[in-house]
């Protein structure tokens, strides 16, 4: 009864013999063979709890629930006996009488599983009447801005509870009360919004009855598969369209990056697309005021002024929000048409140390692992990443690893959400990561926990590195980090003894004057323990923006062409000169900070600023604003007016991600399709079209691609990592680079056999501890660190146009430890003034132990309180990233 080749087993379902997978349940086996067994509490992603009792069938004569009963070879399954029918009917009737929509011919029959089942079983109204319908009406909970909970139609299947617990890992809700009063919530009679719920909506999409349902729900006429525009997780989405409006978003189950899951921004944050604030026409500054203009007027003006500022007077700031194809065009325009390498983008402000550091140690600056593999790690070291807030879908993998018994070490100055799940939480001083990580490595070497075989076979410079560990003794490490050495030793052992181990990090590592050293410390640690080149291991910089990986890959950087090919390499230069038919320059261009600095103290006269808002996002933002104001000619291309357009000479209205074709590359190097779902709103245009139009007006060739697909073909021909990528191949599922040729399947994890360095070896780096550029003193006694809120994105130009997100978080909050707050006589909700050497900002205080004593924390999402006015532009000498994670401030009540 077992088929040897397929390993399937034979069972009988209602008299017919079928072959089924031995690992399936009776319910799965029956459904697979077209035999419908009613079920309400079953969800393929969740462990069965068998509570609805609808799926009862007879197995070898015993009444059992099909959803948790495994098939056994030879089992006789009957779904059609009188006992089965009577049982089902009984349970459905009991549910229906207590269900407010509860009639058999309910209008929600299409979306409500209970109604469907009732109709299928031909429930008889008169039988229901005998029970006399329930008379209690409970209040609908409308406290969450995106969805509501109607207990009157809930069947208590518990799918929402299990989803939040097993998949999201938040456990915000549970069954509350008991007996007939049982309901769903965080506590008896509590409001949904007051729970730990992070509004991801995962429970809502799984609810079988619509008891949990989106508040604004329009049924889309059609759906288009695309990629989320928010963060680097790069989730696959179905964009729902109705009358040229985006009305819904749904996760793509088949997409390995997210497997159908989304966070609150991805699922509910799409209203900005159709916001009335969208820029719909070009604007030109006349007599100091931005006035509407035609495209011809705007393009002519831009082409004329750009033509007058070729060479080192010009700079572009590309954008991690644009597609690969568009970023490619911007850098090509800058290099080939404007004759300069002055092109950079916001990766400078977030992950330039990852690129600079990991290229030196591993030969490639990207995340080594795949998102999904993180869930199979036996140990995760999360350092300088507030994963649940900034990379929520990666955080789901952390939860998955934990559920499988994986260890979690969290290193963060703030007591972030993940700290509550960690086996070990280390709260170090901001900026002390090198000392901490090197301290760990010293323990690993001292205790012989390192992987000598791997080091010998695959690495170089181990000896110098090992010698540099000597200085990281207990006294130094404890002094710099403020952490007891015993804890650091525990972390070292936990990481070294549980392999494969994945390191996750984000801007807590990079945004420092020693950001590159921090990154090198993480790669040292991975090399030392042989945690590279295997699944579920590696060093994984979690990239911030939807296409920040792609913008880097496309050469939106001053020193490299697409594919990290150096501008100062003559062979590379020749290759691009041949391809583009122009003469190119071998001097690397200016970086982000240098471009803005170059306005006042350098050659910069014209800036082409695309999809970015440095007036809020740049460290020491007052200086950035000054530069934007002062530059001779500023073109800003965006979908909204921003703080930066206030200084623009020309504003060009761009299309949003939902209005164009192309690709994004997510944090796990997966190149995925972005698709046009609706026409560009008003007279806005795709960014790629705009850049090409400017080039064409300047009379050059090489910008007449008919489609994004054609641009991708050009990219593939010049970029080794993208060599095998075409739109055709990534129609359904994206490919992970490197993908050098059309038959290559893509790369799940990097460095399996060799490191892409000249000698193929991973390199160790000896590291010196260096303090942050600015440390607290008598005048500015506190450290300010910056963070992100789950509910907002970057300078919040998009998210603050989503009313629900604005409701969940509407203002800047200065997080301060109760001890400091008390000393300053500050209570939660008080307005406080935060002052640094560069400026001051007022906002309300949130007194919380999340921030350690001596450290305050702010986001940078709110223009009313522009945090970056305070931050320090001192930068890392290698990566030139400003130190936005540490500066010295003073906090006082703002009367």
């Amino acid at each position: 009864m077992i088929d040897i080749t397929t390993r399937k087993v034979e069972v009988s379902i209602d008299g017919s013999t079928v072959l089924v997978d031995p690992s399936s349940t009776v319910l799965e086996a029956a459904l697979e063979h077209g035999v419908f067994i009613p079920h309400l509490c079953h969800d393929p992603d969740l462990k069965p709890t068998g509570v609805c009792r609808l799926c009862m069938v007879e197995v070898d004569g015993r009444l059992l629930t099909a959803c948790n009963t495994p098939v056994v070879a030879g089992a006789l399954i009957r779904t059609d006996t009188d006992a089965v029918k009577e049982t089902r009917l009984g349970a459905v009737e009991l549910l229906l009488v207590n269900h407010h929509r509860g009639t058999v011919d309910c209008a929600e029959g299409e979306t409500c599983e209970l109604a469907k089942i009732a109709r299928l079983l031909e429930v008889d109204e008169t039988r229901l009447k005998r029970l006399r319908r329930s008379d209690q009406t409970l209040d609908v909970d409308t406290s969450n801005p995106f969805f509501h909970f109607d207990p009157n139609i809930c069947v208590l299947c518990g799918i929402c509870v299990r989803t939040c617990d097993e998949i999201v890992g938040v456990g915000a809700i549970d069954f509350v009360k008991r007996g007939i009063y049982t309901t769903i919530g965080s506590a008896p009679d509590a409001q949904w919004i007051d729970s730990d719920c992070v509004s991801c909506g995962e429970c809502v999409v799984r609810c079988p009855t619509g008891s949990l349902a989106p508040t604004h729900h329009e049924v889309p006429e059609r759906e288009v598969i695309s990629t989320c525009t928010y963060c680097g997780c790069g989730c696959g989405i179905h964009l729902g369209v109705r009358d040229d409006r985006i009305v819904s978003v749904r996760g793509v189950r088949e997409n390995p990056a997210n497997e159908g899951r989304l966070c609150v921004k991805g699922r509910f944050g799409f209203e900005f697309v159709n916001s009335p604030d969208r820029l719909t026409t070009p604007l030109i500054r006349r007599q100091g005021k931005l006035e509407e203009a035609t495209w011809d007027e705007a393009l002519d003006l831009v082409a004329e002024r750009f033509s007058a500022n070729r060479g080192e007077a010009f700079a572009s700031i590309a954008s991690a929000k644009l597609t690969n194809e568009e970023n490619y065009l911007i850098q090509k325009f800058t290099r080939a048409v404007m004759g300069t390498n002055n092109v950079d983008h916001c990766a400078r402000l977030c992950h330039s140390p990852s690129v600079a550091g990991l290229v030196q140690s591993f030969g490639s600056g990207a995340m080594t692992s795949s998102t999904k593999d993180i869930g199979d790690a036996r140990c995760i070291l999360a350092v300088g990443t507030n994963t649940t807030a900034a990379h929520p879908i990666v955080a789901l993998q952390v939860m998955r690893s934990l559920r499988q018994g994986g260890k979690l070490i969290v290193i963060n100055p703030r007591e972030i959400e993940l700290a509550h799940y960690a086996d070990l939480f280390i709260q170090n001083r901001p900026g002390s990561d090198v000392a901490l990580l090197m301290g760990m490595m010293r323990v690993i070497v001292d205790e012989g926990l390192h992987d000598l075989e791997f080091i010998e076979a695959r690495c170089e410079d181990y000896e110098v590195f090992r010698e540099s560990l000597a200085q990281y003794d207990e006294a130094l490490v404890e002094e710099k980090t403020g952490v007891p050495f015993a804890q650091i030793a525990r972390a070292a052992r936990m990481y070294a003894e549980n392999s494969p181990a994945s390191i996750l990090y984000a801007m807590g590592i990079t945004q420092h004057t020693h950001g590159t050293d921090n990154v090198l410390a993480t790669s040292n640690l991975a090399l030392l323990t042989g945690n590279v080149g295997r699944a579920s291991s590696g060093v994984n910089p979690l990239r911030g923006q939807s296409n920040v990986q792609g913008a880097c890959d496309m050469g939106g950087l001053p020193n490299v062409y697409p594919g990290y090919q150096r501008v100062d390499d003559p062979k590379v230069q020749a290759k691009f000169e041949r391809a583009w038919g122009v003469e190119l320059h071998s001097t690397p261009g200016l970086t982000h900070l240098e471009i803005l600095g170059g306005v006042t103290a350098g050659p910069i006269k014209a800036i082409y600023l695309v999809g970015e808002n440095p007036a809020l996002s740049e460290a020491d933002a007052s200086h950035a604003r000054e530069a934007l104001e002062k530059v001779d000619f500023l073109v800003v291309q965006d979908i909204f007016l921003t703080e930066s357009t206030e200084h623009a000479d020309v504003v060009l209205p761009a299309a949003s991600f939902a209005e164009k074709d192309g690709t994004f590359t997510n944090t796990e190097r997966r190149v995925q399709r972005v698709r046009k779902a609706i026409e560009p709103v008003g007279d806005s245009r795709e960014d790629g079209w705009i850049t090409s139009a400017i080039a064409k007006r300047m009379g050059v060739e090489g910008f007449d691609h008919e489609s994004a697909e054609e641009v991708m073909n050009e990219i593939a021909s010049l970029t080794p990592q993208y060599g095998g990528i075409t739109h055709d191949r990534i129609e359904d599922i994206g490919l992970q680079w490197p993908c050098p040729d059309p038959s290559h399947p893509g790369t799940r994890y990097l460095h399996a056999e060799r490191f892409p360095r000249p000698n193929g070896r991973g390199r160790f780096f000896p590291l010196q501890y260096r303090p942050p550029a600015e440390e607290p003193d008598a005048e500015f006694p506190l450290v300010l660190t910056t963070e992100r809120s789950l509910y907002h994105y970057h300078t919040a130009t998009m998210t603050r146009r989503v009313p629900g997100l604005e409701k969940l978080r509407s203002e800047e909050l200065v997080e301060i430890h109760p001890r400091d707050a008390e000393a300053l006589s500050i209570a939660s909700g008080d307005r406080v003034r935060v002052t640094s050497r560069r400026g001051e900002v007022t906002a309300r205080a949130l007194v919380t132990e999340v921030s350690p004593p001596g450290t305050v924390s702010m986001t940078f999402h709110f223009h009313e309180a522009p945090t970056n006015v305070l931050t320090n532009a001192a930068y890392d000498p290698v990566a030139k990233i400003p130190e936005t994670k540490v500066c010295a401030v003073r906090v006082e009540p703002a009367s």
Partner: protein
Amino acid sequence: MTDKPPGTKYPETKILSRNFGVPESWTLKVARERGAYANLEKALREMTPDQVIDEMKKSRLRGRGGAGFPTGVKWGFVPKDSDKPVYICCNADESEPGTFKDRYLMELDPHLVLEGCLIAAYAVSAERIWIYVRGEYPGSIARLEQAIEEATAANVLGDKILGTDFSCDCVVHSGAGAYVCGEETGLLESLEGKRGHPRIKPPFPAVEGAFGCPTVINNVETLSHVPWIVEHGGQAFADQGIGPDPDDPKSMGSSGTKLMGVSGQVKHPGVWEFEFGITVRELIYDYAGGPLDGRKIKAVIPGGVSMPVLLDEELDVKMGFDDLVKAESGLGTACAIVMDDSVDMVEACENIAHFFADESCGQCTPCREGCHWIEKIFRRINAGEGTEADLDLLEHLFPQIEGRTICALAEAAVWPVRSILVKFRHEFEAKLVKTPVGAS
């Protein structure tokens, strides 16, 4: 089984209760003077874990928590080479109405309970004992905690017990106050800090119990029998009480002794220990003093509230697992509740139905909704608003609930009230809305 000379009372036995009434019986000093932990030492030094399990199987000891599952068989289900820790969980939730036998054991002989747990732990290689004690029993918790402290100090509990390689600790957990937390998997959830929602089985606790680890769950009284069985051998235990039915190869009989109680409308409620064999009537009349003066017994639930009722004329049945099943009732916790002729059976039903509807954890559809409907219908009838159709509806509902749920609470909700409805149907009919003859 004890032969009772005519005219004499069925005798009490003192095995579990041998230390009840001894001054300071709960202290280690007194307990050890009276033999405590000698049997643990015997098991550790003279027996292998498998030998202990064999003796348990031979004893035919059946679980005293209500379901009567053979204890030795249950222990045998624990995987032998588990890579996870194994736990013993002592079910001391005792929340069945009218039942208070486990409390006597915990308060008067906590070292006996501990010793039983420890021998069980040795038999299944468990490294920890959890004792889940009903929250309303602070006295029991205090006695157990004191016993644990003393036992640890004396090295009969903790690391390398009595100098052997066997180590095991013990943690007392105070219960969450819900009836369903006494159900073994509801208890496990509650122990793990979650809501006490029973789990579907399989997996059974012996394979995947507390925190995902193999766990043996036994009632306090069950475990308290273990030292005696180790001392005297399984056969000596099996020789007591009611033997298996020779005509039924599956019959396990009711071996050994049992704490039995009586509460409700009797002269002297209490708890006594007997060898199995005493009848319900002897228990109630000879030990609990019979009904109050001038009253007659109307109905008896032999074990807690979860079993079908017996009428006065049915009380000559023995208090035994199989005997009571044959009488269409059940032993349950063996703590009988007596109702006399002052009781209105419809009201009694409403009270019982309310208890179960209120205690339903609410996860299974038939239990959550069904228990509610049962209560509602009884309330309707009591209020004089019930109809004949309501009685039919009840009869229709019972089989929809019984055997259709995750745990046995729903059955317990059906059994007593259904038997009352059958046996006292006239009392229900008398309360129905009167439909004039000829009206349609």
